[in-house]
């Protein structure tokens, strides 16, 4: 069941523990919500094919452990990633402040070859909110994030549109393109932009 004709994109979810990375992914994948998900130890992996306009892309979702000490593993987790979704909890000021560190980690490893996306989750917790929408937007702008959204996995709010937005930022190639290194080398001549967004696959 090879899906080599599909464009595959690696999307990594980062952020402090308990901000709702797993629940965001689960909402997107299965449209369900549970208040207790098992802690992610190391990393977990899910994938989904997404139909968008008349194109199809394959999203590979990497769910990571949020505890700070797991950070030493982050470089190998975000290797080759196209999109880094950094999640904070709108009811936790601390998780918001620590965004900077996550973004720094991503930039150290991937430079400019990654789309940064900032998500303020748990926006249903209106009474406990500690981070305003404006603060979130400002931070996203400051870090040059291409996407900023507030979501609620619990209510399913903005989750679908988050993934749609992510998909739309992906470089859309013809169906036959870049499934592996041969694919990438075929693409090299097409234009300069493509090679800069893709060269992360070759080495590092």
């Amino acid at each position, binding site marked *: *069941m090879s899906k080599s004709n599909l464009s595959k994109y690696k999307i990594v979810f980062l952020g402090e523990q308990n901000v709702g990375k797993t629940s965001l992914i689960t909402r997107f994948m299965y449209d369900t919500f549970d208040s207790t998900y*098992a*802690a992610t130890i*190391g*990393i977990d*992996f899910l994938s989904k094919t997404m139909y968008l306009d008349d194109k199809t892309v394959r999203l590979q979702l990497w769910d990571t452990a949020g505890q700070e000490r797991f950070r030493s*593993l982050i470089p*190998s987790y975000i290797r080759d990633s196209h999109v880094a979704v950094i999640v904070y909890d709108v009811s936790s000021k601390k998780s918001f402040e620590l965004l900077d560190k996550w973004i720094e980690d991503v930039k150290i*490893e991937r430079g400019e070859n990654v789309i940064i996306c900032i998500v303020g989750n748990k926006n249903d917790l209106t009474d406990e909110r500690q981070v305003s929408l404006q603060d979130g937007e400002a931070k996203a702008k400051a870090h040059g994030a291409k996407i900023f959204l507030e979501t609620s996995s619990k209510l399913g709010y903005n989750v679908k549109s988050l993934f749609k937005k992510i998909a739309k930022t992906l470089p859309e190639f013809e169906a036959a393109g870049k499934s592996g290194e041969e694919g990438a080398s075929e693409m090299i001549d097409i234009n300069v932009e493509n090679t800069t967004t893709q060269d992360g696959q070759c080495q590092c």
Partner: protein
Amino acid sequence: MNSETLQQLLELEANLTKVSALEAKEDSNQTELLLAHLDKITSQNDVNSPIKSSTSSDELPIDAQVISADEIQTKFKEQGSLSWSCDQCHESLFVSEDDARDLAAKSDSKDCCLETLQKYKSTELDSLELSFWWFFINNFSNCVLTLPNYTRFMITKGVPNSLRSIVWTKILQIETTEHDYYERLYRSLNMDVSSELKIIENDVRRSIPGLTNVTNDSQKQKIVSVLNAFSIYESHIGYCQGLQFLVSPFFSQFNDEIDCFKALIQLFQVNHNLSGIYDHSMSGLNLWFYQFEEIFNDQFPTLSSHFQHLNIDLKMFLSQWFVSLFAVTIPVSFLPRLLDVVLMEGLQSTIFRTSLLLLKENEELLLSIDDDELVMKHFLSDMCWCVFHNDESEFTSKLMDMSVCKFTSANLDALESQFNSKINSNSSHSRNKSIFGKFMDGLKSTTSIDSYSSRLRSNSIASTISTISSVSSVSSTAPSSPTDAKQRQQEYHRRSSAIPPKLSISISHSSNLSEGLKCLAIDSCQSSIISHDDDLDLLSEMLKLCIANGVEDPVLEKVKMRLEIRADS
């Protein structure tokens, strides 16, 4: 236990030795890990206890109590039977501990459950097994030294569920350490609240394997307390997500906070490089990845290149396996069996062998898959365990059957040196200085201690010294290592001189036997309680054996005298 069964055990051991010599894989001795780890356990115990460190090996610690064979048989039938489940429908046979003690079935038991229960009721340990476990429980280290192959055989077979808690207590040597002291320590630690208590609570609530004794809220709360105390006690480790998986099997067995706490501390002390896996920067993990990948690439070149072709990084699932001890995906019934091996043969080597076994058993399937996603999903879920058909015995025997030679401390140390020199040469190219810095700090704190695998048995002090010197040269940046090395060196001299230099026993395959017999005799004789005439008989029998086989030692004379006095009274 009488002399006849002892003789039988010894014969079995001799036969197993012959068999394993015939099957010898890549000139490895399958008992090597077992014996090396035993050294770590016993030397740890010496270091830990200031009282014991002053005594020489002819005055072994006195066990508080000798447990008689009858007691073991009774325990086998009664205690811990809560964990018994029906052979056919796998449902638990008992509702409460009281039921289990009386072996009373649940009121709504099905026929298959009643049948299983009947079978259990009539099951007894046969005399040979009983003798073995008697020996093991009353004198763990000498039992292993005397019967290494048979010990492996019994571990492969599985520690009987009902004896597991006492057997683990013996291996971990946690009952000889002062209970009161640990109780006070534990209580006082829990007066404090770990900065990570919220995470601990959250993790224990949401992710814990479904083991006996770890199901209800009050039990989970106790696990939280254990982790809280541990994270304060071992402040350089604190709490790491994944530790909850390590703690729960212990709690499940002991059903006691303090024993569980002691077990955890002891586990980290005996497996000294373990703290690097769980500490604040998880610095040791990258070394383990490197060591494992080297072994994997060497042993499974086809699979390794297949992974390269699919652009799969082993670390993706290794991190989950290593940090959770496989507990995220392993079938629950495998977990105690895996820990039997971990406790007997060391954590790192057992984790490595299990990982390699998983890859090996799945190899054929993997080679037919040409999709990176499927491979990742396979290994990050319980699907990869299907190769053992939900049979914990199949898993254990395959695990114990794997050649140990790649996992000896000598081999792992060599890989560690390789890794360190690689790191050093790469350092100028490192793009991430902060992580790299942490990483090196971690290395400094772990390598120096880690590599001192005490090799009392190898009878070559020279090799030990060369190990030490190579280690201190590798980690010369760590200020503490030279003095430690010197102390260790002296320790080896002291220990090795305590062993009679020439022991020749005709029936023995090595000097272990005589040494083991001697120690057992001394130990049992010194024990305050000898409850059975059988035990006395055994002692004198062993003494005769020692003498008949030419073991000459002044200590034996002492034993003989004491024995005579006892027999008279």
